[in-house]
């Protein structure tokens, strides 16, 4: 089963994404801050991380950087921010894609399809 970690400090966003991903037959793990996210990655080795940018304890860009230092996992940033600079930074740190809130689930589905084919 395709394993996805959803990281966001907003439980409503986590709930929405979790419900959507479970409908797509994914195994969904959740985390609500940056530190917890890194623990989940270490313990569960997900194939995809959906990662909020602005979070308590450790922000998404820092989490992204740490994940990429030791794991080859696809990371898609999720944020309400619309600044191009954040996207460029995320891209430079190895993010695969970037989705703005409210999330377009049909686009997320395409990302899922592509990554699942790559990791099959």
């Amino acid at each position, binding site marked *: 089963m395709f394993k996805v970690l959803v990281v966001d400090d907003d439980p409503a966003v986590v709930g929405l994404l979790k419900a959507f991903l479970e409908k797509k037959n994914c195994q969904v793990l959740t985390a609500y801050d940056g530190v917890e996210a890194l623990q989940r990655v270490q313990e569960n080795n997900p194939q995809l991380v959906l990662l909020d940018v602005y979070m308590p304890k450790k922000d998404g860009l820092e989490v992204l950087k740490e994940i990429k230092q030791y794991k080859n996992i696809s990371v898609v940033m999720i944020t309400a921010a619309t600044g191009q600079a954040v*996207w460029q930074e995320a891209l430079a740190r190895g993010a695969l894609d970037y989705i703005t809130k409210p999330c377009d689930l049909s686009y997320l589905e395409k990302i899922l399809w592509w990554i699942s*084919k790559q990791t099959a």
Partner: protein
Amino acid sequence: MTHESNEDAGAPQTSEGSHLEDFNQEEPSETARHVYREAINFVLASLHQAEAGQTIDICGGLQLVNKINKSLKEDVGLVMLATDRTQEFSISQRSANVSIIACSIAQTLVMPESTVIRVTLAGLLRDIGIVRTPTKLLYKQGAFSDSEKASFRQIPIYSAEILDGISGFEWLSPVVRQVYEREDGTGYPFGLAGKQIAEEAKVLGIAIVWEAFLHRRSDRDALTGHHAVEHLASQADGFPDRIVKALIDTFSVYPLNEYVVLNTHEVGKVIATNAGNPLRPIVKVLYSPDGERYLKPRIVNLIRNFQIYIRRAITWRELSTALEEAAKDEESDQVA
């Protein structure tokens, strides 16, 4: 009626020349066009030779195949020509297309150079047995009956017979015979499976199917490249995963020439792909949300403009229909 492209429509970074370094080709080069014409002429000449019972000029084909291989390493011009969605292709053009597509996949698979050459040459000649098929069948419109389908299924056997016994090219006949065989044994003419099928034939097999999906046939409409890739990746066509992956790696999820609807409701055409993220290619934005063609289309690299992304791909026919409907709406408005 045409519109100026709105540079501010969610794409502040797309002003002229800001990120054109990612690609350098919007149209096929003259060299690519020349090689493409040569490929079509070679197929036509081979068909005439087969029809006349003459020996096929394989050596001429080898020179051409080297040019195709070289051209594909240099730029995407040949791929642009082979995947053009705006025209219907002749039998000889389709063979050239398949040869080009298969050569690209073989390069992606890092097959030995000699194997790449074999794949490309066999691609040009794999349908030569068509000369033994009744002409009226080749140009028939609409669905085929079971007996007509059975006639088509003889083509790889005829092709193999015509190409059999050519000195130095003994491998050619078995390969063209196997291009419709499938990994899971569901293909024809002999229902071979797995390792019984030559690697060259597997690459050609997926190239044939993909090329066919991209273009309209007498009994069905074209698919979008995206839909074709999804179909092939669903394993419904009996190709090994690594060959399907190679196809996607080569042509991406939204291949060159794909028409796409963006989240801005504009319509564009894929003119280059980004290897890092196939969902975010470089798009030439051609039509406004109300279907009017931009006077100055802008080019958007979706990987650098996160706010813009592809909602869906559409076929050339769907694009034409959408534009016609938009034009009709405009006429009605004027009458009213």
